[in-house]
């Protein structure tokens, strides 16, 4: 009990320094948590993808189209339940700063294909029956204050011209990692318009989204689909939605690596701050430690005391960081909504914060503890702190 009191008193002997150390540790761990959350956000599309969906695209690259006519042949592959043509529309609302993802989709089986988009039956019906309509995510609706019935006009960057459409439905995500910033509208609308404006570009799709009944047969079905179109004018590449999304993530791998590297730099910074405090604390109290040694305290006991002090400071900082991170992430989520539609703190991040906090506590105490336990009593007394 007495020992505990001693540790507590010592840890806060320099109250200002203790507080600063705690804040320092908290700041660095918060930064680490933010970085982890950014990495998670990057992978959000992968996590949110369904095992029951495949994507078929042009084997050359994603930007090459496929003929719409492929649909019928894909439909006949065993195990395929739904086939829906889709594509990246790349429309701009007013100007480029208002970026949000917008896709064209075939809508017949749309809500069966994407069960994670929750829309009321009335809105579903309204969207499905109006060919010049769109369904949008809740966050997107909030961002531009759009309501059902509003007309939104997109300017096409890939498909030239103005594209007015009415918002008929607003979806809510079934899971926290469902992207609620997307606009989907009818492939039929796009194709009919293109037939009039530039017939050569009609009848083309960006990809086919395929719903399969049995997720375990995904590999087999993908192979069967690609075999259909081998040596045709447009060879296909079919993969699971997860693999497809991972492909996007892999493209920015270098940035991911940089962020990961930075998050380790952060850990190093905390270590420097905490180790500094402990080193100073040990140096200043060398005399006291000598007294304790004379009184019969062994080296392990002294090292243990320093360790306990260091843990106390590190863990206080960790607790603070864990408390601050979620509200801070919320702020970031608003600011970075354009880049990261999904931005929330995962349980893994909090566990890692705690683990690193512990590690910092131990490591910061290591060198000073070793020094204190190794010092000879006479030397310690002789030295002027």
């Amino acid at each position, binding site marked *: 009990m007495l020992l505990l009191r001693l540790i507590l008193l010592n840890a806060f002997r*320099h109250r*200002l*320094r203790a507080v*600063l*150390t705690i*804040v*320092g540790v908290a*700041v*660095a761990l*918060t*930064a680490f948590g*933010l*970085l982890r959350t*950014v990495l998670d956000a990057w992978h959000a599309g992968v996590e949110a993808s369904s095992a029951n969906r495949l994507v078929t695209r042009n*084997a*050359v*690259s*994603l*930007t*090459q189209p496929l003929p719409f006519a492929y649909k019928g042949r894909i439909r006949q592959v065993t195990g395929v339940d739904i086939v829906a043509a889709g594509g990246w529309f*790349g429309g*701009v609302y007013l100007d*480029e700063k208002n970026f949000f993802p917008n896709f064209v989709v075939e809508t017949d089986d749309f809500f069966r294909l994407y069960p994670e988009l929750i829309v009321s039956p009335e809105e579903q019906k309204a969207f499905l029956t109006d060919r010049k309509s769109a369904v949008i995510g809740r966050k997107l609706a909030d961002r531009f204050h759009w309501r059902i019935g509003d007309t939104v006009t997109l*300017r*096409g*960057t*890939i498909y*030239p*011209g103005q594209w007015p459409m009415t918002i008929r439905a607003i979806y809510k995500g079934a899971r926290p990692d469902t992207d609620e910033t997307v606009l989907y509208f009818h492939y039929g609308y796009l194709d009919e318009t293109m037939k009039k404006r530039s017939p*050569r570009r009609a009848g083309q799709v960006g990809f086919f989204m395929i719903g399969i009944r049995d997720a375990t047969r995904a590999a087999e079905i993908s192979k069967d689909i690609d075999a259909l179109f081998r*040596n045709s*004018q*447009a*060879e296909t590449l079919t993969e699971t939605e997860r693999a497809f999304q991972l*492909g996007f993530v*892999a*493209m*920015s*791998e*270098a*940035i991911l690596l*940089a*962020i990961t590297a*930075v998050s380790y*730099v*952060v850990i*190093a*910074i*905390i270590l*420097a*701050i905490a*180790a*500094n*405090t402990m*080193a*100073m604390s040990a140096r*200043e109290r060398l005399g006291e430690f000598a007294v304790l040694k004379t009184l019969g305290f062994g080296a392990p006991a002294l090292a243990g005391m320093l360790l306990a002090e260091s843990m106390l400071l590190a863990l206080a900082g960790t607790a603070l960081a864990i408390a601050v991170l979620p509200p801070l992430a919320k702020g970031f989520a608003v600011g*970075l909504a354009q*880049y990261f539609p999904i931005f929330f703190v995962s349980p893994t991040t909090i566990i890692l914060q705690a683990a690193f906090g512990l590690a910092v506590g131990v490591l910061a105490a290591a060198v000073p503890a070793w020094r204190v336990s190794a010092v000879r009593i006479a030397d310690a007394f002789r030295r002027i*702190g």
Partner: protein
Amino acid sequence: MAVPLSYSWRNLVTRRLTTTLTAGGMALVVFVFTATLMLAEGLRQTLVSTGSPGNVIVLRKGSETEVQSGLERVQASAMTARAEIAPGGDGRPLAARESVVLIGLTKKSTGKTSNVVIRGVEPASLALRGQVRLVSGRAPQPGTPEIMVGKAVAKGFAGAEIGQSLRFGKREWPIVGVFDAGSTGFSSEIWGDADQLMPAFGRNAYSIVVAGLREPGLFDAFKEAVEADPRLQAEVWRETRYYEKQSDMMRKFLTVLGVSLTLIFSLGAMIGAMITMYASVAGRVAEIGTLRALGFTRGAVLLAFLAESTLLGLIGGLAGVGLAAGLSFLTFSTTNFQTFSELAFRFTLAPWIVALSLAFSLFMGVVGGFLPALRASRLGIVEALREA
């Protein structure tokens, strides 16, 4: 009278471990700060130098990138015939109709697929891009499926060296040359004959027209004439401005992320400096008393301690910038979100980045040291001396 600077310096040297740890923390912060700026600057310089000042680039109206753009043959030919365009060496207009398509290739380092621009070019394309020169092999023969690859492609992607061939569009495309375009976006591209590539991709339209003007002043006339023609449905950019625009989104992203992170880190580093300086003051109360008794004013003591922490910041800053400078030997390669294609660029250290980083580190030192220095200067002579 001021306390000599060597006093502050010696104090740092005496407590070597603490100084190293504090300056080390600051150095890491400055390192991250500098590296971020270098990355954004490298991206900007690469894309800006990709364009040539005398060139114009014509895209379909409303399209933001070459890949999205499309110009029908008739439209494209109408533009290349305009009088503002300079004559080339062969007497024909110095203008090229190019097609731009992305193809997926496998990266050597990760085994993953990344998009590479394959550019269908015409003879004038080379004349228009002075930065592009052949380093090995030969240029592709017009009228054949031969292609040449940029240096960054040959280095970074599997199966992209001379003698090998790429397969797409039901055809083999032999690689006959490697070209170097310096640190420009072209180094991350593959070039072949437009008339061969377009049918392979089932394309009838070109993506862009690039042209050299007789003189730069004709830009406005050209732009006006082309954009006013309702049959063309096109928009005209100076090539330099067009490529600079392609880096906007990535640059903004890198800067926002990097700067907000360093702001958070710098809080940590300033706290580190504050801890060190408070300890430094606490450990030298008697010394401060002596200084004051010798006649040094409060201001002089304040300055001495502030100088100490500023020096600490400077050491950290120099170390951080030094570390970051080492990065300039590295090439960074990533997908540009805007064009969706792979782009290799370098960490580039510009003088303004060095200045900004050092200013930032000095600022951290001053802020971290201010309160402790204030405390040192406020100590009463008598109480301070009694401590001894």
